[in-house]
């Protein structure tokens, strides 16, 4: 009986570290963690193991592998289908060029990943729908207030919220706890702006909820009031931030100051 309880603890702790516990269980687990030295030691061990594993050198794709794959695929075409195409090639001079262009583009895509293209797309879209973004972000905030809780991952531990974002989004912001400045970190959620998932960090200020949505760096939206919620926006090198809350504009301003000071310099990778 005791053994199975321990096993269950072990599973819960793993799920907690992986950001896979539901909010209620996560909070429950954090409460236990705070009061249980043995559990805390095990938790630290898991985090330490994770750091060790993630600091291992990453293997890079060998040069030429992609080219070899492309030619293996070329060779894989059924012969009868291929022949007439070979013959028809000189008749359509546009084709080989098109092919080499697409190969280069794909090679680039594989190296740089979807991150760049998605952020470029988001930036382009934002120019068109600049102020729509603020409305969408406010809508996300309102929706979150109607839900049982305004976040998907509940944690006052920034070391939980940040990895939770990292495992879901291509780019994730720093998650400082600003409890000392009156803004208590309570969790995070993923909002969708345009068609892209973005990280929203959730803070409590007295009884009020502050949602801080982070978009890829671009022009900030103007400070304004939408549907009774105050909106404040600023940008740094990595992100454009949009804070939404029903607290007065001057409190949002001090939130911005607290966040900018509390957000450590971005890690260089």
């Amino acid at each position, binding site marked *: 009986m005791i053994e199975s309880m*321990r096993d269950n603890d*072990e*599973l819960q*702790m*793993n*799920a907690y570290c*992986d*950001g*896979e516990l539901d909010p209620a269980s996560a909070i429950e687990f954090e409460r236990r963690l705070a009061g249980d*030295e*043995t559990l805390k*030691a*095990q938790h*630290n*061990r*898991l985090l*330490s*193991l*994770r*750091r*060790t*594993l*993630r*600091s*291992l*050198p*990453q*293997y*890079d*794709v*060998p040069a030429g*592998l*992609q080219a*070899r*794959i492309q030619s*293996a*695929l070329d060779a*894989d*075409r059924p012969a009868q*289908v291929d022949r*007439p*195409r070979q013959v028809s090639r000189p008749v359509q001079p546009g084709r080989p060029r098109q092919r080499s262009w*697409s190969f280069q583009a*794909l090679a680039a*895509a*594989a*190296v740089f*990943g*979807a991150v760049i293209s998605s952020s470029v797309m988001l930036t382009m879209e934002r120019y068109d729908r600049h102020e729509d973004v603020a409305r969408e972000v406010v809508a996300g905030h309102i929706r979150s207030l109607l839900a049982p809780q305004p976040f998907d991952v509940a944690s006052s531990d920034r070391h939980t919220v940040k990895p939770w974002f*990292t*495992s*879901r989004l291509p780019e994730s912001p720093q998650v400082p706890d600003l409890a000392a400045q009156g803004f208590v970190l309570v969790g995070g959620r993923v909002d969708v702006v345009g068609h892209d998932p973005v990280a929203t960090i959730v803070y409590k200020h007295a009884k009020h909820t502050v949602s801080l949505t982070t978009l890829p760096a671009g022009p900030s939206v103007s400070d304004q009031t939408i549907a009774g919620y105050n909106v404040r926006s600023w940008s740094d090198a990595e992100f454009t931030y949009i804070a939404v809350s029903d607290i007065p504009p001057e409190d949002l301003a001090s939130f911005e100051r607290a966040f900018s000071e509390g957000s450590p310099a971005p890690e260089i990778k």
Partner: protein
Amino acid sequence: MSVAIVQNKDERAVFDEVFLPHMAEAYRLAQWLTGNSYDAEDVVQDAALRAFRGIKSFGAVNARAWSLTIVRNTAYSWLTKNRPKATVFTDDLSTAEQQGLEHEGPQGARIETPEEIALFKADAEEVQHALTQLPAQFREVIVLREMNQLNYRDIAEITNVPIGTVMSRLSRGRQLLIALLGDRK
């Protein structure tokens, strides 16, 4: 005939969109599963060919999980064929390992000081060695979780086991690794 060409071209385009963006991850996974770069290259190339031939079965849901599933399965069939002794799948840990866990593992009663647990005193080589010592089913979930940073649902899909099994394998795999690394102190 022209229809066949068009179809063929489309399949290639779908392949380029679905599989290629995950090449780097595919290679990393293959490297961890096979243990060396030569085998990893062969596996990825083989997997790419399989993906291309089976591109019609791609359900347009999760390209990343779909691609990595093929890489994972290719790696295992490649290993079984070429190095049958290298792949160890065990349903249960050996008694010795189990005892080791109980004595030195995280369930031991001793509580470490923060300094002791801050960092494992192991360099990259030792950690890699410890990882290769794990039975394959523990190693793969740890690699998919920590190196590929996939969530439980995707790991379950790729390894073709229920989420509950992913959870218990992750937990036991980590305990084993901690015990292996802890032994070196």
